[in-house]
């Protein structure tokens, strides 16, 4: 997880070294963009050619290229098309308009965050119970693992329908799906974390005849913090996936998932790509935030940075 550049003390930071270290990433990303443009040209060329042919217009190669970069309904939109669509759909409309992508992002993000909070708390509590009760570990843990083999997204429509039937709509059912998806990594990670202290340290607690609650608060909990943040990073993405997918089966009116769905109905390729990029940005920001909190906590707990 730790990147060697991050582990270096700040004093040694040199711009040239930084560039040298990251050159491979830039290269790969640059190659990806080139491939993307190439793909946009190759995949969109037939439809542009057809359009020219239909209108019986003679065209040059550069006109063909220009056409593939500007296609209304491209098979593969060019990167700049996606960027323009993103800009237009965020700044082109008022914030509360259903045509504004930021509005949809907010709808999905709120469900993600609520679901993530519920899932994380539930996962932590479950892990604490499992660590302390042998019967639960034996009976429940296998089912928790099995529950993840079930493609839980299949249950999503049911949850929406059941909650809808008792009058709960909107954010909460989506959050439940997110929570249901994301409690698992937290529970598993925390079971690992809470059982991570050395036997020696546990024995030490025993010599002081500390009770279970004290062992939990003074030893198990602090020891599990790195595990907690590692699992939170995994589950926040899963939570976002849950929120997006929860919007699909019910034909939700708002949210990233709704954007994907309507884009796919009306063949708005560029809209789909923009929504995808938007989802990627949300995931990145959420992970970066958790990372930052993890770093702060680690420093607070005396970790060498």
């Amino acid at each position, binding site marked *: 997880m730790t*990147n060697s550049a991050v582990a270096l003390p700040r004093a040694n930071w040199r711009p040239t070294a930084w560039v040298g*270290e990251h*050159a*491979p*990433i830039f*290269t*790969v*990303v640059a190659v990806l963009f080139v491939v993307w443009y190439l793909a946009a040209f190759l995949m969109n060329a037939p439809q542009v050619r057809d359009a020219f042919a239909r209108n019986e217009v003679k065209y040059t190669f550069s006109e063909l290229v220009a056409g593939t970069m500007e296609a209304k309904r491209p*098979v593969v939109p060019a990167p700049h098309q996606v960027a323009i669509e993103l800009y237009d759909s965020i700044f082109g409309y008022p914030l509360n308009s259903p045509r504004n992508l930021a509005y949809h992002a907010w709808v999905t993000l709120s469900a993600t965050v609520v679901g993530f909070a519920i899932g994380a708390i539930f996962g932590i509590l479950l892990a604490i119970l499992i660590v302390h009760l*042998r*019967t639960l570990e*034996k*009976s*429940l*843990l*296998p*089912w928790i693992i*099995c529950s*993840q*083999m*079930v*493609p*839980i*997204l*299949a*249950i999503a*429509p*049911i949850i929406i*329908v*059941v909650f809808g*039937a*008792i009058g709960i709509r909107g954010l909460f059912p989506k959050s439940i799906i997110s929570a249901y998806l994301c409690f698992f990594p937290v529970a598993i990670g925390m079971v690992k974390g809470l059982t991570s202290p050395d036997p020696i340290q546990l024995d030490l607690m025993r010599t002081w005849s500390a009770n279970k609650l004290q062992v939990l608060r003074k030893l198990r909990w602090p020891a599990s913090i790195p595990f907690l943040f590692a699992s939170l*990073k*995994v589950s926040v*993405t899963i939570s*976002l*996936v849950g929120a*997006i*997918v929860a919007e*699909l*089966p019910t034909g939700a009116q708002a949210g*990233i998932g709704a954007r*994907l*769905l309507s*884009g*796919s109905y009306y*063949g708005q*390729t560029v809209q*789909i*790509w923009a*929504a*995808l990029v938007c*989802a*990627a940005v949300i*995931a*990145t920001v959420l*992970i970066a935030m958790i990372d930052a909190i993890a770093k702060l906590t680690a420093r607070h707990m005396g970790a060498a940075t």
Partner: protein
Amino acid sequence: MSARLQAIGFWVAAAGLLVALALPLSSQAAAAFTSRTGLLVALVAAAAAFALASWRTPVSTVFGLVGTALGCAVTVMLLQDPAIAGYASWGYWLMVLAIWLGAILASTRLADLSAADQVTRWLRDLSIPLLFGVFLIYLWEVTVRGFGVSPVLMPAPTSTALRLAQSLPTLGEDFMQTFVRSVLAGYAIGCGTGFIVAVVAYRYDFLKRGLLPLGNFVSALPVVGIAPIMVMWFGFDWQSKAAVVAVMCFFPMLVNTLAGLAVAGPMERDLMRSYGARPLQTLLKLNLPAAMPFIFNALKINSTLALIGAIVAEFFGTPLRGIGFRISIEVARMSLDMVWAEIALAAVAGMAFYGIVALAERAVTSWHPSYRK
């Protein structure tokens, strides 16, 4: 839980069953227990078994389990009476609660049993989650039917099972479409290319240093979102689903394989060098075996991702078959028993898939410290 507390618990469970006899079974005019001799005997036997289970010997675990089984049987039989199903009252729910308490205590006993040999330990560790699962289904059944929950909201497990048995051909068709065609194909393509790219990237440091952070980044993105694009590119049939699955599987495999190939220590690598081993030999004899736990980790992660990817992709269009498609139309039709049957199918397929991968992992990486006993 102390043995004393357990004993008291069992007595409470036994007393609960007997007290329930005196309470009304239903809010409707239903026949009392006195007119159901068979059930009455079984219930008293269950109470007696719970009482015996309070006895502090390993044998008493059996009494606890017998009492639970008898109690479950009685409560389920009672639901056949239309005057009770949907109108269950205090007496009935007290019985269920007492059985629940007995079940918790019996499973605690079972978990605490010391097993001398491997086979008994294995049996014990397998039976606890199984009994737990069966009991969960029992609770679901009595709750739904006892309260008379509308089947539109939540069907009882028995009606789901009935529906499952009746729709085997449809389910088989959906299984073929979603699991065999979309999931397996996509899984094989995604894992295979991820593995090959990782091995190539491992040979070229520049490529590795570029791909690894990118792979880590993409692994953390909601990749399922590409489903509508893939449906546009590859059409409604299984090819588009396989494409989604392949892309989802690619990055975890790439990242894990790269991490695994790097795990061999400098000493092990020096050893190969001292033998004058060729790069291919080092790869085959050292790096790949050492990477196996990581590769299987990716295979396991991907086995769950693959099903999710295929089902989600089906929400964006299918040729009128497939698990995801069936779920979305049956939800619209409010026939939730069929939805649950599909979910059960997906769950069994998912668990079997994961189980096979886990078994293969055990066979291949049995040397790994996590399997040491």
